[in-house]
């Protein structure tokens, strides 16, 4: 930057600020200050003794402090939203976001905000976006929030019941929904997260005919593929694959007899193994089916089912499953929040349940909630009733538990963009948990 003197004087809305060019350089070239002090614009700098900016001085002061220290401290008399607006004006919104919360750590989470929705029914699913936003499925609509928790236009697929959704990137959301008989509605669509516009609708072709279908669980791979469990009306049950850049169907894995894929509760793309985990679980089906599909050879390369497992006294049904590629295993959870593990390297192994003391036993709420699992940065998260447990280390020791007093049990949670979102089954409320920035010293 072609600044002659290091000292810079601003007149912001009538208030004088003095700062240094080095401080302003922290804003980066891609900000208003970066442009302002570029030599293209700064030819007359020697003649000017102050720069006038027609903006709110109080907010400027906060943002100048952010540039000086990298920390954001908003006085109580200034609404947060105002700061965001001003930061957007100066091109400093990314700085604000980065200073708001630190790198995600399941053991240092703090409840940052609770958001009450306006949906008439209960929410069913929540998904964290890559930059800190989230979307909440509520019956037939999906509400989209950006990282400032500003609500964007909601999205829907002909108002059909939403089964699953996911962020492809911060601009694009895919939702899967039930079909409506005979109308070709429902299925799957790709939406703009900021405007709610439908960009593509994905189709299933069976024997060269486009069929309507119900899309279930979703998963994405880094090479632009979308996977979804599909149920058609004749025999197009299985896993569909689409390219999200072109919107075209690229593959379909038909389910084999006696094995359930089209009703899957969870899909998970395993990058290193280059295959897809498909889990169909109780109570959607009477039995649990977990398998790994390799699309290159069109084969199930690993599978497990409890069809022939003996019914033990304490009934242990798998309610959620997640693959952990680092340890080549699958973690499962039952309705008592017992964790179990399976070895992916051995075919047809059994579940090894971990024997930790079950404090939960005997105080099951009236309306039990499906336990859910998530894995993030080597930490394992498991939700049960109204709390989320965090497990760490190679033996998965319980290290933290997140709980909130109202909102009822947690029906879904999701981690992404350095935040954890938990959706409660009552009151339509969701909580946002963040890791605070590191302490000053």
């Amino acid at each position: 930057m072609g600044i002659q003197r290091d000292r810079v004087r601003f007149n912001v809305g009538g208030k004088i600020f003095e700062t240094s060019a080095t401080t302003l350089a922290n804003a980066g070239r891609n900000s208003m200050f970066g442009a302002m002090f570029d030599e293209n614009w700064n030819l007359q700098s020697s003649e000017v003794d102050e720069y006038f900016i027609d903006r709110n001085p109080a907010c400027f002061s906060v943002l100048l402090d952010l540039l000086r220290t990298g920390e954001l401290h908003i006085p109580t008399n200034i609404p947060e939203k105002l700061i965001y607006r001003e930061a957007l004006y100066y091109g400093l919104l990314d700085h604000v976001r980065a200073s708001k919360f630190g790198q995600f750590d399941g053991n240092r989470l703090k409840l940052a905000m609770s958001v009450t929705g306006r949906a008439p029914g209960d929410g069913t699913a929540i998904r964290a976006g890559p930059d800190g936003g989230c979307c909440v499925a509520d019956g037939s609509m999906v509400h989209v929030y950006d990282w400032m928790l500003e609500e964007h236009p909601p999205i829907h697929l002909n108002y059909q019941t939403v089964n699953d959704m996911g962020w492809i990137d911060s601009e694009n959301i895919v939702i899967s929904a039930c079909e409506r008989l005979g109308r070709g509605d429902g299925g799957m669509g790709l939406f703009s997260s900021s405007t709610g516009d439908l960009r593509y609708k994905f189709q299933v072709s069976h024997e060269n005919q486009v069929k309507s279908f119900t899309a279930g669980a979703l998963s994405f791979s880094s090479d632009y593929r979308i996977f979804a469990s599909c149920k058609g009306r004749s025999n197009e049950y299985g896993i569909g694959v689409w390219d999200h850049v072109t919107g075209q169907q690229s593959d379909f894995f038909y389910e084999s007899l006696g094995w359930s894929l089209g009703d899957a509760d969870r899909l998970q793309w395993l990058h290193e193994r280059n295959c897809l985990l498909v889990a169909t679980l109780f109570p959607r089906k009477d039995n649990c089916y977990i398998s790994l599909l390799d699309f290159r050879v069109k084969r199930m390369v690993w599978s497990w089912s409890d069809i022939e497992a003996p019914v033990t006294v304490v009934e242990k049904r798998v309610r959620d499953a997640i693959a952990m590629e680092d340890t080549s295993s699958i973690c499962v959870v039952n309705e008592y929040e017992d964790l179990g593990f399976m070895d992916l390297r051995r075919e047809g192994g059994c579940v090894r349940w971990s024997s930790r003391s079950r404090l939960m036993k005997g105080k099951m709420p009236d309306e039990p909630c499906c336990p859910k699992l998530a894995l993030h940065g080597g930490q394992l998260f498991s939700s049960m009733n109204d709390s989320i447990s965090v497990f760490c280390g190679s033996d998965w020791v319980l290290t933290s538990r997140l709980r909130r007093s109202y909102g009822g049990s947690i029906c879904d949670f999701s981690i992404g963009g350095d935040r954890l979102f938990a959706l409660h089954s009552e009151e339509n409320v969701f909580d946002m948990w963040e890791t605070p920035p590191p302490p000053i010293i």
Partner: protein
Amino acid sequence: MSTPKRRNFQIEAFKHRVVVDPNYAEKTWKILEHAIDEIYNHNASGLSFEELYRNAYNMVLHKFGEKLYSGLVTTMTSHLKDLSKSIEAAQGVLFLEELNRKWADHNKALQMIRDILMYMDRTFIPSTHKTPVHELGLNLWRDSIIHFGKIQIRLRIILLELVQSERTGEVINRGLMRNIIKMLMDLGSSVYQEDFEKYFLEVSAHFYSAESQQFIECCDCGDYLKKAERRLNEEMERVSHYLDVRSEAKITNVVEKEMIANHMQRLVHMENSGLVNMLVDDKYEDLGRMYSLFRRVPDGLSTIKEVMISHIRETGKQLVTDPERLRDPVDFVQRLLDEKDKHDKIISLAFNNDKTFQNALNSSFEYFINLNPRSPEFISLFVDDKLRKDLKGVSEEDVEIILDKVMMLFRYLQEKDIFEKYYKQHLAKRLLSGKTVSDDAERSLIVKLKTECGYQFTSKLEGMFTDMKTSQDTMQGFYASQVAETGDSPTLAVQVLTTGSWPTQPSAPCNLPAEILGVCEKFRTYYLGTHTGRRLSWQTNMGTADLKATFGKGQKHELNVSTYQMCVLMLFNNADRLSYKEIEQATEIPPSDLKRCLQSLACVKGKNVLRKEPMSKDIGEGDAFFFNDKFASKFYKVKIGTVVAQKESEPEKQETRQRVEEDRKPQIEAAIVRIMKSRRTLDHNNLVSEVTKLLQSRFLANPVIIKKRIESLIEREFLERDSVDRKMYRYLA
């Protein structure tokens, strides 16, 4: 009690809509448009960035983003029209300079416009999926300048002309060229490829096609390759100076195809300067150049390789079949080694030690060495020669080098068992005559043979060394026991050879002189006394003797002769004249040996201790021999060699060959049985191929002979034919 005066309160609709100045958007846009004009006119110093930024922000905020964006497109397009006019107007050399200057201006203006419209770029554009400002500016430049009618064609022609004139040796402004090419790349790789690279490659192909045609007519192969190499380097340098790095593979590909691939055969076979001439003249530099250039094109190296193989095979074939060369086995092998050295050096210096070339060389040698059935014998003779005399005083390392080279030739031999046969004979002679130069060298070679062919191959050779050692001990023991009675009798040195280890043919012993017989008997008694259950038979055809003889004028000499010669000479102690028949009767030496032995006693000049009548080179049955009284020599010790044909004579060769064939039979049978034992059943063709494979390290088995052996084994009920499929054999346990 209602009040009569009812005041009607009416809440009116708030009609007064908040309308900003209806011309607000237009006014604000005018300010921004003016600023953009000023920026393009290099007059931006009067502008206030803050004001412009705020105005652009306000337009987006008040939902006039669309107007702002479309206004930007219109304004920028019109400015680019102006720029394109001034570029078009520039003539000749100035055209590129003007284009470059305007490109720089546009870039700067674009940066400043983007600065003003930063807020729109950040919020309005992503949510409406429009093209960001910077990219928009590049697209407009592309459409209104680079793809605009005459400019597009002129630009392409000028760029190609510049490249052309640089190729013909002129100096061009590379900096300008680099800027223009970079502009094309900035506009997107497809612009660079479609507007420049495509034509560049086309024109280059034409140029090099013509140039290579011209070169090949007037240059020899070496010069041509030099020129091609220079052109290739020039093109790579050009890419590094001002083209996209990704063009390098493409343009080098063009040069390779036009200059090398298209003329490969002609270059290789060029008269007087082609590959064969380079090989013959050891032109390492040219060969290296050919290798590195040909390696770049498909089938290039295989072309070189094929020519090289056929050349080596041809010269090798001449070498091994030239009857002139067959006279001197040592020279024959030395030439093979020289030939190998020569090509090894070429491969290491010019062909980058390429494994495939080494393999080709090896297979060529294998091919022609085996063209001559006497190669195994000659190689063994070469070793014999080296170990007899040549290696005297040579350092251990050099000995190793020579032996390694011999081993290399040995590896090429298909009939290794024949080599073994000869080697055994030659080794036996060396050991028995005590002629070997170095025991270490002998043993070292045996170790090499052992690592190459296994324990079996050398066990007999090693047995020979053991015999030599034990014989020494035995003789010491013998003389220790005979101390008392040595007296005047001749000194005897016996080498006890184990039957089987040595290449001896059991031959009836000749009649030894009585003096010797006595000592021999003593030794026999001693030996059989110490070793029970053994049988000794004398190999009189292999021994030597030192005789003291007195000639006329009292001249005394010590004669070093073979046992046969000794027997003959001893006869002359009692007679001055003996006829051939008399000698034959007295000694009972086999006629062929006797003739040879008499020849060396009577017909070699300077060593003729006997005189023959009539005087002639050959020995006849009617010849008579006299003691040569006039024999004279300046040495006291005279060595009378046996006239041995170093090479085998024709009948001997036949005999050796026959013995080898005979020896192979049990080996082939063993191989058949070993294979059948593990396979149980096998068809004929597979069996033959497996047997061949198993015996490969020793010799190349003849399928006809294998078949005979199979039949013999069937007769002896080792195998049987399958009753259904006659081609199948079954192993009978």
